[in-house]
């Protein structure tokens, strides 16, 4: 009897012909918003707008807007540099001027970008900040980062210290401490820098808008509970969180965007469609994952492709909670404007204790009916990474679902080894498949 030709040599799938991918409309809208903001920043020297640099976790955008300040986020700049493949040279530049190869690459990407002319993603120079709002939440490195920037810019620097939720709870002492800092130091300093008098009603107005957009964001993120998930809550989620984690929270733009996004996702949901990927619609959903940790930006597309090529969709992620844990119920509350800002800062993901993180991730695995937890461990970020191997073990134990561990970096391309990552991912996917009890279907490669 004759058998099928078994020799598979050189029958690898031909690379798909480059096709024009219809981007989802929400993404185009998001990109336009981000571009407009970068232009506002670049225009600042002409418009006379003052610039406040701050961080994504603990971003007090509503407050910043009360003083007519433009919000500039060095973290987001570093991400943009990563996506544009500039970060590698920025990191090297920072190391050249004396920064250790061991330390956070976000910081080095930012410092290297400054050293090389501070050119933003729009190809134009980013303005020097008029004030550094050191909203110190969930990461010690933030403090050093802004001390380093202060050394360079010699501009006023305002510390807002957020205590860590070491015992898994927010105490009245923490809230009082933060509200006091806001009242007695942060707000007066912002008034001095901006020349604008603080108006608490203006803050309330912004906070109300924040909450409205937050509702829609949560709806979108939780749509991933459905099968198939209409979104990828990690790779796609990164686009969704852009406006609300950045300079748009509290604006009408954000309300519009999240309403629009929600409608778009509702539509996909109604049609039973899966997520949109850079190569168009994803094929059938085969693996549902919860992902812990930031993504890699230097090889973002390649990284994402390793998932969607295998039908793996991320249904929940912790990274999309670094700028606020809205899905756990928090909303900005105009009724208690300063307290709500404090609570917001206290609740961001990286300010949560390890037991809280384990709890949250385990809950995600269960509520989103995931096949397991994948940790992308980032060389750069000790706040995320230190302890992740225990998190993995604990979530595995609690959920009974297999977990896996890969290692990359946010913006340092030296820490992204495609073969290494793919090796582990494929092993993980095949392990899930095998554990389901069925042999891997052989014919799906044609899909």
């Amino acid at each position, binding site marked *: 009897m004759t058998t*099928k030709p*078994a020799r598979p040599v050189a*029958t690898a799938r031909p690379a798909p012909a480059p096709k024009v991918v219809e981007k989802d409309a929400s993404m185009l809208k998001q990109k336009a918003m981000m571009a407009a903001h970068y232009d506002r920043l670049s225009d600042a020297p002409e418009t006379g707008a003052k610039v406040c640099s701050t961080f994504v976790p603990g971003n007090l955008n509503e407050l910043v807007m009360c003083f007519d300040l433009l919000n500039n986020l060095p973290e987001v700049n570093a991400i943009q540099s990563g996506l544009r493949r500039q970060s590698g040279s920025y990191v090297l530049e920072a190391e050249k001027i004396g920064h250790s190869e061991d330390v956070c690459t976000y910081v080095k990407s930012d410092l290297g970008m400054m050293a090389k002319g501070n050119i933003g993603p729009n190809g134009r120079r980013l303005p020097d900040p008029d004030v550094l709002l050191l909203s110190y939440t969930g990461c010690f490195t933030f403090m050093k980062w802004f001390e380093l920037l202060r050394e360079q810019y010699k501009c006023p620097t305002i510390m807002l210290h957020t205590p860590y939720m070491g015992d898994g709870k927010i105490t009245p002492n923490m809230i009082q401490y933060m509200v006091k800092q806001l009242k007695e130091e942060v707000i007066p300093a912002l008034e001095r820098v901006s020349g604008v008098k603080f108006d608490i009603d203006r803050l309330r107005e912004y906070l109300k808008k924040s909450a409205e957009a937050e509702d829609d964001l949560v709806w979108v993120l939780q749509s991933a509970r459905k099968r198939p998930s209409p979104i990828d809550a990690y790779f796609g989620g990164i686009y969704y969180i852009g406006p609300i984690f950045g300079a748009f929270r509290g604006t009408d733009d954000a309300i519009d965007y999240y309403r629009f996004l929600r409608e778009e996702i509702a539509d996909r949901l109604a049609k039973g469609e899966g997520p949109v990927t850079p190569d168009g619609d994803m094929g059938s959903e085969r693996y549902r994952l919860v992902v812990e940790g930031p993504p890699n930006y230097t090889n973002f597309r390649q990284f994402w492709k390793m998932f969607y090529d295998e039908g793996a969709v991320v249904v929940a992620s912790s990274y999309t909670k670094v700028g606020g844990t809205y899905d756990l119920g928090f909303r900005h509350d105009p009724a208690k404007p300063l307290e709500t800002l404090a609570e917001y800062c206290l609740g961001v993901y990286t300010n949560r204790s390890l037991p809280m993180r384990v709890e949250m991730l385990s809950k995600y695995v269960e509520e989103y009916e995931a096949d397991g937890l994948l940790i992308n461990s980032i060389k750069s970020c000790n706040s995320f990474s230190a302890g992740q191997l225990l998190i993995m073990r604990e979530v595995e134990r609690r959920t009974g679902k297999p977990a896996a561990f890969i290692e990359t970096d946010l913006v340092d391309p030296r820490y992204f080894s495609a*073969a290494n990552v793919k090796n582990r991912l494929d092993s993980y996917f*095949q392990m899930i498949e*095998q*554990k389901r009890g069925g042999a891997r279907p052989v014919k799906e490669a044609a899909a």
Partner: protein
Amino acid sequence: MKTFVGIDLGSTTTKAVLLDEGGAVLGRGITNSRSNYGTATRVASEEARIDARFTLFRRELQGAREASDIDEFLGALERAFRLEQFLEQLADLEQTCLAQIQGERFETAADGVREVLAEVFRQLRAEAPALFAPGAKRKSDFFRDLAGSRYLAIAEDVARAAGVPYNLVVNVYDKSIIAVENRPPSGNLSEKFRRALDRMLAGGSASGAGAREVQGPIERALGIDLDETWLVGTGYGRVTLPFSKEHIRSEILCHGLGAHMMYPNTRTVLDIGGQDTKGIQVDPRGIVENFQMNDRCAAGCGRYLGYIADEMNMGLHELGPMAMQSDKPARINSTCTVFAGAELRDRLALGEKREDIIAGLHRAIVLRAMSILSRSGGVSDEFTFTGGVAKNEAAVRELRKLVQENYGEVTINIDPDSIYTGALGAAEFARRAAAGEAAPTELAGDVS
């Protein structure tokens, strides 16, 4: 008959395993990976098919002769066959070398080089039988290793005597060897076996007495077609494996399954290879439950021992025995390959004994492996240790000690052929895939 092939493409060697329909191992083959995975795959599976023939010979001969006779006979046949194959590749090398004699630099020396080549290959052929004589030790079975050093040694003398520039003779060799290596022996295998048998019989070897009666079984075995029903490839280089997606399985899964097939009670597998270290937990069916690998830093893998051997000017295989001489291993805290050399020199300069340092290095590697095991979920009974480092007695000694200290009494399995673990698992995946394949296809046909 149907056969199922597993290929494990490693960074240094490529392994192939051939299974029959019942899941029994028919043959195994290994070759150096070169820079060409396609060729390495072809050569390794060819080697596995050759090995499979010997299995089939044995099956045919069984009952007809005494077991010890069969061993002796097959041993002789294999030597004769290897010699045949070697001579064939030698002929290929000679032709290839001759074809290289062209161009400006050979303008005046071409004839001289040709004469030298003729003499060199005459000598190589003449000494070839001794290479495959009973009891002869070959440092390697790869053609390049066997032919290369002898070619260069003989050529130096011959060229000098002939007054031909040695570098020209080396040059033609260098240009030819890769081509020859990448051109696996192509001749008809059965014919080669027959020639080998003839050579044996003509040589009147010990088995000659009953020679005639073996020809029947041998011919019957040669008459069996080995169909390659399905193939699965694995290996760290999988991203560039020369197979399509449905023919690829993760090395972790292959390794876990392979270890399970060798030792069905395996629950934990440790593999220390050249580039990475893996800790794998498998369930009673050989399904992977958890795995961990060393991170992007390759410290503490087999390659580290390679650096140390180079640094000490020793052979890789001498390290283990030297470490065994130590009863007081030095405490080495870094398994960083970048610092290995410096740390070594520093310690030697401080007067520490070589064997203690080397023993300390072995312990350091095993400590790292213990951490990876701990990360993957610890060590459960039974524990199977595979990979190149599993052949190193000093590493094994430390591992036994540490496993005992940390996990108590655990059965530790080490198979001398553990290098084939991944390929074995891959072959089993191939067997299962082929078994499960028909159904979905037919089903799909029915539905549509």
